């Protein structure tokens, strides 16, 4: 099938050497490729958004009315909570407790998603020019989303919680049991390294533990939907439904510590 005379062999070997060289040095090509594609991808993103606005006009109108009602309700709730916060601050001052530093956020739009079934991520329209660095936590108003992994001048790649390469130190809000939350590429996350007698049950809320600098303590990750034993029987795992719908994100906030 392969005609391997001397000339062909040299050509094949040269091509193979070039391919191997490119495969090991492709990391250098990432930044220029992502930067080059930023403008057309952003344009398509805007067009898609506008087109969606026209097509789903009626649905959006109904949603707007519902959201306005919710905003009114939440405004009342925020007012009540402000009172509690101020009272809390006064009491903390009285007890001389160290005040928790407030976090700063950089808002960003999702403009694309990586072309791969074996990882889970986003490409956002903010990069180093906006003060974003590698390893920063990414959230939405609903909870934790992931972490920045590659930053160019004007775009960044975000690895989502559902990516199996990402691990987040987390704890069960009720029992303070610690574990490691990882992605599975599916719709649920998995919390690993739970001891055999861990106090965890379906319905428990999982939050970030704050052990890693990327993720501030207390960020909502999700809710436990199932608990099982590892094959060895020495430890338990828990399946977690993420608080954020990771496959429908359009805007995110990058946590600047």
């Amino acid at each position, binding site marked *: 099938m392969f005609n391997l005379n001397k000339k062909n062999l040299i050509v094949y070997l040269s091509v193979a050497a070039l391919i191997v060289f490119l495969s090991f040095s*492709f990391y250098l090509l990432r930044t220029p490729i*992502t930067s080059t594609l930023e403008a057309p991808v952003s344009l398509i993103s805007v067009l*898609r958004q506008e087109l969606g606005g026209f097509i789903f006009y009626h649905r959006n109108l109904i949603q707007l009315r519902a959201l306005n009602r919710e905003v009114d309700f939440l405004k009342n709730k925020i007012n009540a909570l402000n009172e509690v916060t101020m009272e809390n601050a006064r009491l903390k001052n009285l007890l001389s407790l160290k005040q928790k530093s407030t976090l700063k956020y950089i808002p960003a739009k999702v403009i694309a998603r990586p*072309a791969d079934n*074996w990882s889970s991520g986003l490409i956002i329209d903010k990069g180093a020019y906006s003060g974003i660095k590698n390893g920063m936590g990414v959230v939405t108003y609903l909870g934790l989303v992931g972490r920045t992994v590659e930053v160019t001048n004007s775009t960044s790649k975000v690895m989502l919680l559902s990516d199996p390469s990402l691990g987040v130190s987390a704890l069960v809000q009720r029992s303070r049991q610690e574990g490691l939350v*990882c992605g599975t590429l*599916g719709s649920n996350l998995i919390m690993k390294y739970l001891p055999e007698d861990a106090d965890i049950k379906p319905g428990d809320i999982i939050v970030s533990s704050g052990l890693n600098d990327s993720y501030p303590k207390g960020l909502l990750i999700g809710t436990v939907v199932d608990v099982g034993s590892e094959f060895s029987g020495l430890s338990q795992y828990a399946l977690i439904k993420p608080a954020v719908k990771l496959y429908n994100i359009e805007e995110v906030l990058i946590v600047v510590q």
Partner: protein
Amino acid sequence: MKLSTLLVTFFILVLVELTCLHYLGVFQVKPDLFLLFVFISALFFPLRWSISMAVLAGIFKDALGMGSFGINIVLFSLWSILIKEICHEISIDDNLTRMLFIFVIALVHNIINGLVAVYLGSFIPLGIFLRIVLLGSLYTALLLPLILKLTKANIYD
């Protein structure tokens, strides 16, 4: 098909893959448009062009992905040479044979990519692994006639 048309097709496929394809995913699995591009290049272009296109597709897929190793550059080039050599030996002129052929290639490609991900430390449950491998390959194969139809007008230019 002219080289300029091929490059425009490639650029459109890259944009579609990045921006719109996510919404067409079945069970969160997307078809591999880059692999389809490599397959079409290998079917209708000389070896040097098909390898060049395979390397280009591999660079883009790896650069726009989250993996840490340029495996797609190697695999796409390999598939390109293999398709070219097999096309010399047997005829794959009808769409059904082509679909079967691309299904097998996509299957092997997905299995290798999945095993590399597992080898690099990712925990992927067996069910999700099989879903991505089988459904991703099937989806890619089913999309081939559509992509061929969209590009066929220019193939014999």
